[in-house]
């Protein structure tokens, strides 16, 4: 699903044909050349992103189970009905949403703090930035394993803090908290990095002027910095929300989805690779794709997040 970001509907307003001034021959030739030069890239993009997506949509409309190859047939939307009326799916959906909202909210606050610190650091700026980025540089699965062992009774220094027989990863709420913690630990630096880019946009003069007018630090933050940073904040939120919704590695390692901690990606994996049910698994993949598209749409259209790659930010 990493294609989701590139597939985001980039709402470029097409100039109406009527108001368009006629192009000169030279301009037309230039445009043709431009299209021609883009074509190979566009075709490759279509092959590597559109084809798998369309193929999984096609699979999702069939009863296609590798274990019953003889019984493969087209069944329309029956798989969607099966998934959307299933309580396991909705439990996983709710869990995923919960993890997404909670972890992104915490990351935003911590990321902002970290960004402010990194922005204001005078001594050893490069070092501070590098050090704070380390968690993001560690492979998620590796980090997840170290969390797993830390929270496992016996081997775990963190589990042992909770008491001799504490096994937090076998209970619902504690394991959810640990998953969120692992996510936050890992991706806060990424959030901070994006926010720091936003902070750089805030002119010092503006802050000085606000200070002259008697605004205190909090007022300067909420009335000056946040509004100026808004596009950067929204982009950071968009990226992290889409990313968090696809959470897989941490859950796979920490609980394997036991105690209702399964996410939608985890469940898709189980149905596809454990259940060998290509129909149901693809249906889930398509549903995740649709959800991610809706999330992106909400961010871009309703909140006015600048679409990645476009030069004009703000609401259209």
């Amino acid at each position, binding site marked *: 699903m990493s294609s989701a970001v590139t597939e985001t509907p980039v709402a470029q307003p097409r100039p109406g044909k009527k108001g368009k001034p006629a192009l000169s021959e030279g301009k037309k030739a230039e445009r043709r050349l431009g299209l021609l030069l883009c074509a190979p890239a566009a075709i490759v993009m279509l092959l590597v992103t559109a084809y798998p997506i369309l193929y999984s949509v096609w699979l999702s409309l069939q*009863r296609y*189970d590798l*274990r*019953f*190859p003889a019984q493969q047939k087209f069944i329309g939307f029956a798989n969607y009905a*099966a998934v959307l009326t299933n309580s396991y799916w909705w439990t996983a959906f709710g869990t995923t949403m919960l993890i997404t909202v909670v972890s992104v909210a915490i990351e935003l606050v911590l990321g902002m703090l970290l960004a402010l610190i990194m922005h204001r650091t005078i001594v050893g700026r490069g070092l501070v930035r590098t050090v704070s980025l380390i968690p993001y540089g560690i492979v998620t699965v590796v980090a997840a394993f170290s969390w797993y062992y830390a929270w496992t009774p016996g081997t775990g220094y963190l589990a042992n803090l909770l008491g001799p027989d504490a096994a937090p990863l076998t209970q619902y709420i504690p394991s959810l908290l640990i998953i969120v913690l692992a996510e936050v630990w890992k991706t806060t630096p990424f959030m901070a990095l994006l926010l720091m880019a936003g902070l750089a946009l805030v002119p010092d003069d503006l802050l000085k002027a606000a200070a002259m007018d008697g605004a205190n630090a909090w007022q300067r933050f909420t009335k000056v910095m946040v509004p100026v940073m808004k596009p950067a904040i929204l982009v950071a939120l968009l990226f992290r929300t889409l990313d968090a919704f696809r959470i897989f590695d941490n859950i796979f390692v920490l609980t394997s989805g036991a105690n209702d901690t399964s996410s939608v990606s985890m469940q898709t994996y189980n149905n596809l690779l454990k259940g060998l049910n290509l129909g149901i698994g693809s249906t889930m993949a398509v549903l995740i794709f649709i959800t991610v598209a809706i999330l992106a749409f909400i961010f871009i259209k309703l909140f006015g997040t600048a679409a990645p790659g476009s030069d004009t930010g703000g609401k259209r």
Partner: protein
Amino acid sequence: MGKGKRRVAAVLGAGMLASGALAACSSDKGITINIYYAPEDTFQSVVDNCNAQAGGRYHIVYNKLQRGADDQRQGMVRRLAAGDKGLDILGLDVTWVPEFAEAGWAEEWTGADKAAAEQGVLPGPLKTATWNGKLYAATKNTNVQLLWYDDRITPQPPQTWDQMMAQAQQLKAQGKPHAVLFTGAQYEGLVVVYNTLVESAGGHILSDDGKSVVMDAGAVKALEILKQVTSTGITDPSLTNQKEDETRQAFQRGNGAFELNWPFVYASYAKEQPADLPHFKWTTYPEVNPGQPAKTTIGGYDLAVSSYSQHKPEAFEAALCLRDKDNQKFSALKDGVPPSIESLYTDNTPLDASKPVNPDDNPSMQTAYPMRDTILAALKNAAVRPLTPAYQSLSTVISKVLSPPSKIDPQKTADELRSQLSDALQSKGVIP
């Protein structure tokens, strides 16, 4: 441009090297038979034996799969779904045979190979290697659970579940170790316990052809027992976290009076607590209906030949060798996996027949399996898990619905299982 050309040349070069290496593999050393099998400590010796027997006609290579059963299955399935020709012999858990057969990944055993694979094999294990009345694998080893107890705590072991629960309550009242220990975590082990209870109660989860859900009175009775044993304070507090080894450890720590587990626990006990070993006793699994011996779920591994194998005749021959009588005995004595060939249970010659029996370095079935008569009795009256290609989904659904066992509401849980299992059989169900 120069850079581009260099890159192309490099890719071509790499391709040529790779194809050269592949060619070298297949031509120089004769036929290679790749077996993909779970890690087993001394299995390489078995492979070496068979390679010596083959006399250079083929060479078996032991490819170790992952440790976890789910990972083993996925590793093979991914390759087979892509038609990988590099797999010749597949080491299948007894529950996977119908799935691999139905998907067209396992070759049917016929003629002389079939006769050799069936020779002297106990009927229970043999059933796990068949699907739709045809043989798709040769049994490599089997396994069956027993009831383990300490005769200092319970001199008279219980014969039925009711007796066992009553004894546990009495022991609890006396402040002695009392827990009934079994694999209660949300995984296959819980399904094994449930399947044994269902079969022992004379019930069925699926119909015999594996095509429809039954969930009859016996299946409900089994739910009642699971509920009763787990909700009356006679199980370990961390029951829902216990798999085979946690169960074994809990018993060895003195946290229980009864342990339902596979025979591997005996070897571990002998090694870790030799002083107490004379008190570590076993008996057949408790009955559900008094007077009707329990039907215990069997485990183990079968060997199948991949449909994509390029050397099927040799693969069949190699598979037969790897699980022949001598090698099954070797694995039983060295790796503790109970044989599927009946006559080995009465075999009294030690590993090295020319030397006297010595439990430490020249064991016989007698020294390594003092409980062999009990195992054989259990195997002769064994239950197999539902035979269906959808077993993996079934198992996931059952372990999910039964967890935690103390929350079971027999009639309601049975209805839930009935509907979810029939969805799973029709590839409609979502597995959690």
